[in-house]
């Protein structure tokens, strides 16, 4: 079931066309990553989706309800974690949460729950100003969870945090998705996108230039998973046997062994290994290469994700 659908989003700031004809959808329980270099238009897109920014063109619909800056009903369905920390540093964590809870119509018990979820319960009475960077980030995320939204939008929620807080935030996101929340996630960290996102959209200079699962994107570039094997035994026989496996798409000699081009290296590897051993050859070494999003990204935009 589709939770977010946006189509034809466009926004101009003076001479800069920040977002140009961006469309995508996110389903229930799906985590969608929006990846792009600095200034690509991620935050602008997200601001239009969350209804805090006017758009020049396009539609945003959340759970069947059209979104706009005045659409109170649609905003009830969306949780928003902005890129910049948006909280009162001179209030405590709990006071910040209670304030936003009152705006979301969430109760005090929910504030305590959320504090537990992000692991800030024992520091809830301290001023936000005195939190570490990672704790501030977690509080920033917590505010977006208060009203248990259908769609959670996180704009670089882990920017500049320690590994511990990063893991906490990523675990939170994963658990929420498992409960069926639709999640829109932007990040500069490729490994986060690979770990969390079911699908990614690559945005550059305001345009969505590619979209799909990691595998789809990788394949569209002609990049495939590869398994390199070093073998003792009859290479040509092994090649015949392995070539008969449906998931093996290509095969070439490679040193004292073979290099296979496969659909999905992880699924394929056990099949390949058992085929070899039943045919009497001995595997000396195995090397699996899965082209990652970084490769895709570099290929598509000519830029590294983080500069």
């Amino acid at each position, binding site marked *: 079931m589709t939770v977010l659908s946006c189509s034809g989003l466009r926004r101009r700031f003076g001479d800069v066309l920040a977002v140009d004809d961006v469309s995508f959808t996110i389903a229930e329980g799906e985590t969608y990553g929006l990846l792009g270099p600095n200034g690509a238009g991620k935050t602008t897109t997200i601001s239009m989706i969350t209804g805090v920014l006017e758009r020049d063109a396009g539609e945003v619909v959340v759970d069947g309800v059209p979104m706009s*800056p*005045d659409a109170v009903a649609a905003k009830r369905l969306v949780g928003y974690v902005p890129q910049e920390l948006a909280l*009162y540093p001179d209030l405590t964590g709990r006071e910040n949460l209670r*304030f*936003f809870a009152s705006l979301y119509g969430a109760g005090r018990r929910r504030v305590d729950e959320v504090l537990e979820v992000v692991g800030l319960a024992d520091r809830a009475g301290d001023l936000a100003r005195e939190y570490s960077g990672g704790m501030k980030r977690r509080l920033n995320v917590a505010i977006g969870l208060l009203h248990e939204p259908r769609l959670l939008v996180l704009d670089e929620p882990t920017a500049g945090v320690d590994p511990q807080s990063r893991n906490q935030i990523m675990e939170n996101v994963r658990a929420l998705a498992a409960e069926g929340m639709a999640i829109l996630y932007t990040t500069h960290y490729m490994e986060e996108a690979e770990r969390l996102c079911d699908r990614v959209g690559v945005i550059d200079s305001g345009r969505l230039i590619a979209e799909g699962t990691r595998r789809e994107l990788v394949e569209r570039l002609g990049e495939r998973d590869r398994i390199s094997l070093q073998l003792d035994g009859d290479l040509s026989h092994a090649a015949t046997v392995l070539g008969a496996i449906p998931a093996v798409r290509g095969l070439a000699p490679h040193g004292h062994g073979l290099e296979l081009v496969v659909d999905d290296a992880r699924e394929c590897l056990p099949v390949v290994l058992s085929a070899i051993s039943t045919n009497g050859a001995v595997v000396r070494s195995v090397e699996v290469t899965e082209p990652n999003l970084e490769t895709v990204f570099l290929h598509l935009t000519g830029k590294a994700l983080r500069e």
Partner: protein
Amino acid sequence: MKVLSIAWINVHRALRDRTGLFFLVALPLLLVFIIGAAFGGSMKPVVGVVGDAGALRSDASVQVRDFADEPALRAAVEHGEISAGLVRAGTPVLLTRSDRSGQQVRMLVTSALTREANRLSAGEFVASHAGIDRDTALSVVDSMRVEPVEVRATTTGEALFPEGFSGFDLGASNQLIVFTFLNALTTAAALVETRSFGVTRRMFATPTPARVIVAGEALGRIAIALLQGLIVVAGSALLFGVRWGDPLGAAALLVAFALVSGGAGLLLGALCRTQQQTGGFGILLGLGLAAFGGCMVPLEFFSPALRTVAFATPHGWANDGFAALTRRGGDLLSVAPHLGVLLGFAAVLFSLGAWRLRLAVTR
């Protein structure tokens, strides 16, 4: 209520912050004392006395303090600790300073001492003619004391300030107007700060209509302005007897002017990008409007053209409203036009502020 949550968070932060606390509580209290000391009508002169104070001690219009000797008395007068000093040995000697208050004290003391001398000589006269002892004679004299004749003074012709109007009560309302407005403009900085934290934008992402956010931000500012105004008016009236005129009328004017001030704070906070800007424009606007609105020089001294300008400012209307209450004996009904205009100003400021704030966040 979301409006109240947003309003409360403003007051709460102002109370927690040290400078906020100064503007919210300490400054109005300071104003109470400044206004009270300068404009309060109930300050009694203190007269230091060496020797028997006599009739002065029972005089309601002065307060007597006893001194052991003349040098101590003289020093106290010179240091301004007391208004005047009286030495009673033979011919009474009065030590005063050579200002107007010195002359007033001299008249008070002279009349008190004359009354005392009159009583004693009348007692002597009755004792010798009626053949009764001196104490009985004095009690007879006391029993037939003539009450002072009441003289009602009034001015004739084109008097700007009627008799009994000290000229200072107007000063008190001027101060109130100037500072309520200035303080409200300083709250604009808090709004700019909230915006720069990204919190205002985040509020727009919650299911809260823009008008509720704006109303909440405004209400916080009005509450602060109103609280300050109340502290000043009630404090100076209770502690120092400063007159504000008809209570209902004064309260209504105060509320209306607090609304204007809160609206101005909102608009300024929505227009400015930095806190420095709010500070600069705040002072400029606060003092400029005060000057044109007759808070520095009484409106009566304005030329007709300047008067027109004065009544283009909320300060001019508030000023004239308080003048109607304190000087022309007006009540709620007579300041109705002033209230109407002030509420109009407030409505315009809120609408503009709301529009600007929404634009500043969503554009």
